């Protein structure tokens, strides 16, 4: 009888310890990796006001300013991303998505350099012409330049 009980207790204890180990490893893994892989989103005003996150990969969203797109070469583009109040110069090398256009919403991912330029390594694809990234809508609302519903 007692032998049986200790056996059950032992088994339960082993299982408990095992699960504790797994859980703590998992928590460590999650926290550590989450911290390293978060990409923050900023509007042009945020970047200029707060003056932060240089040299770290971030996302920037807003409207592509009218008449601001020019090609340095066939695959290097310069354009301005604006929220109506401030704008940031963006340089991007690669393919622009089909729906990239002036005066339309855009989200770019890359690094905000010390000289105030934004070097993008990704221009995020959108699904259709009328789609506006929710962050961009928020950005425009915050800066008081939102004209949609």
């Amino acid at each position: 009888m007692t032998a049986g009980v200790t056996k059950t207790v032992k088994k339960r204890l082993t299982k408990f310890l095992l699960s504790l180990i797994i859980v703590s490893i998992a928590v460590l893994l999650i926290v550590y990796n989450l911290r390293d892989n978060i990409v923050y989103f900023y509007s042009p005003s945020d970047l200029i006001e707060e003056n932060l996150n240089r040299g770290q990969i971030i996302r920037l969203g807003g409207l592509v300013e009218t008449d601001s797109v020019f090609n340095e070469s066939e695959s290097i583009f310069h354009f301005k991303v604006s929220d109506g109040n401030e704008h940031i110069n963006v340089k991007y090398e690669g393919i622009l998505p089909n729906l990239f256009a002036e005066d339309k919403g855009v989200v770019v991912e890359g690094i905000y350099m010390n000289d105030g330029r934004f070097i993008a390594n990704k221009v995020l694809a959108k699904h259709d012409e009328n789609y506006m990234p929710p962050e961009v809508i928020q950005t425009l609302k915050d800066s008081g330049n939102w004209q949609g519903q």
Partner: protein
Amino acid sequence: MSTTIYYISNILIIICLASSLLQTRYLFNINKFNNLSISFLATIQLFSILIAFGLLIYLFLISDFSFELVYLNSHSEKPLIYKLSGVWGNHEGSMLLWILILVLFNFFFSLFSFKRKIFQNLTVSVQSLMIFGFTLFILFLSNPFKLSENNYADGIGLNPILQDPLLAIHPPVLYLGYVGFSLVFSFAIAGLICKEIDKTWASIIKPWVFIAWSFLTAGIALGSFWAYYELGWGGYWFWDPVENASLMPWLAATALIHCVVVLEKKNTMQSWTIVLAIMTFSLSLIGTFLVRSGILNSVHTFASDPGRGLFILIFLFIVLFGSFFLFAIQSEKINKPDLSSLVSRSTGIQINNWLLMTILSVVFIGTMYPLATDLFLNQSLTVGPQYYAITITPLIIIFIFFMIFSPRLGWKESKLINLIMSMRFILISVLSLSFIISLYFDLFNLSEITIIFLSLILVFTSLKSGFRPSGKNTIIKSNLGQNIAHAGFGIFMIAVVSNAVYSKEKIYDAKVGDSLELSGYIFNFKKIEQVEGANFNSLKAYIDLEKEEKILDEFTPEIRFYSDPPTITSETSIIHKFFSDIYVVMNVPQNQQSVSVRLHIKPFMNILWFGVIMIILGGLITAFLKRTRIDEV
């Protein structure tokens, strides 16, 4: 005509509403209507919704724009198949499909005759309560049969990116998975009420769990395959919140199917099984809520009507609160002590269940964290795909390790040393094989080679025990499905890792006449021309694939311009070779003379899909194979 259909369809929905309300009588012990058999009411539910759904299809096919839903989501010039898929390519239609599958499962389940009639009655009652809730929802908040106030000449059309044959079947298959777990959930609640969660309970529910799981797997795979060739991003999984929303119930369901097997065999892990059944269905609901409510912006988001999101939230709350309350009261009475020893198959399965739950938490936190910071801290952020890859890799390694060993442990106490001895040939050969691989391809790092090594063992051991003839006759063993699925998972993992390591990508700005190059292949850009499609215009490029002076094949990537609604899409062109896919997609940036051409080499894609098919097949075999128990060692 339209008004007649309007009335008939709404009456049909009300009939379903009434019959499902009657069907819940066993929950409240109302004996008044006991003369109505459950299968009779289930048949009424099925036929009313089936006819309503048929009517909706009919409306889409004849393009009756006096119905708002048809106007908003269809167009008279759309090809037939997309008129059809337009039926569930929107919120209202997809909810009707959801209900159709709910009643379908209810109907099939009510047809069977079980020894324990009370289980069946209660299950059908719980299921009907859900049917009642959802029918109420579509009747008042999301009625697909709403007449529009204006007369429209033509409809708006379906988002062209959704105009794809695969997407016509992706939602129904995925829903069969999601909603299949509603039946499992109902059955768990019935078991909790009866306080009888045991071997019989497990053996009745087992085929249903496996069917639902197989459909869920197939639904996710179809979505992934669609993303691979339609989105043109060169990948098959992006850790997008929408994808994660379907992966989470899958992880819980995978743990659940193993628990059900243990319960059937050993009459233990009752609580786990119930918790997982509740969890799987709740995560299916959360998935639907996240995807449909507009919280996540994607092609899947139909409408951001707050009322609808609120309904699913309330429904979810009732499901979670009600079932866990019931569980808290009853759990003491359902648990049987676990008599198996520590080194046994059920321990292995339990460890892997913990690992699945850990992976689930990783995905859950990665998906929810950005929503939480946005909601509470007003800080927008994204969790990069690297988070998932890095966090899940070590977990997967331990997971595959236990996948190899636990099926080879007996249900009773086993000796580890005997097991290792019995596997020595496989272990040695695979070890040397992966050593050669790691020397030959120096691209793999330690964790990658470990996954490949373990997956290879998994494939070999699973195939060996799945197809070993026992005695003189080759008898189909009861664990055939399990071994096929496990081998499929091993093949899948090998393909995933190799694909991640060996994928190549190059972007060119190309003009007609250019020759592009990617890892030994030459791509000759021959011509580009305008082509008129069924409901779009397109720019079609012709690119020859050349290797060692020989023309192998021709790519025809396109850019399509749709007018209803106005959209541009890129159509990929993929050549499937046995070991790798060669993938071409092009873009036309505005105000530019050249075309951007993106070339991808994606190795092992065929093998990856093959692994997935094996996993699904394994699930279906387990569901349908009659258990003529030729028990394994």
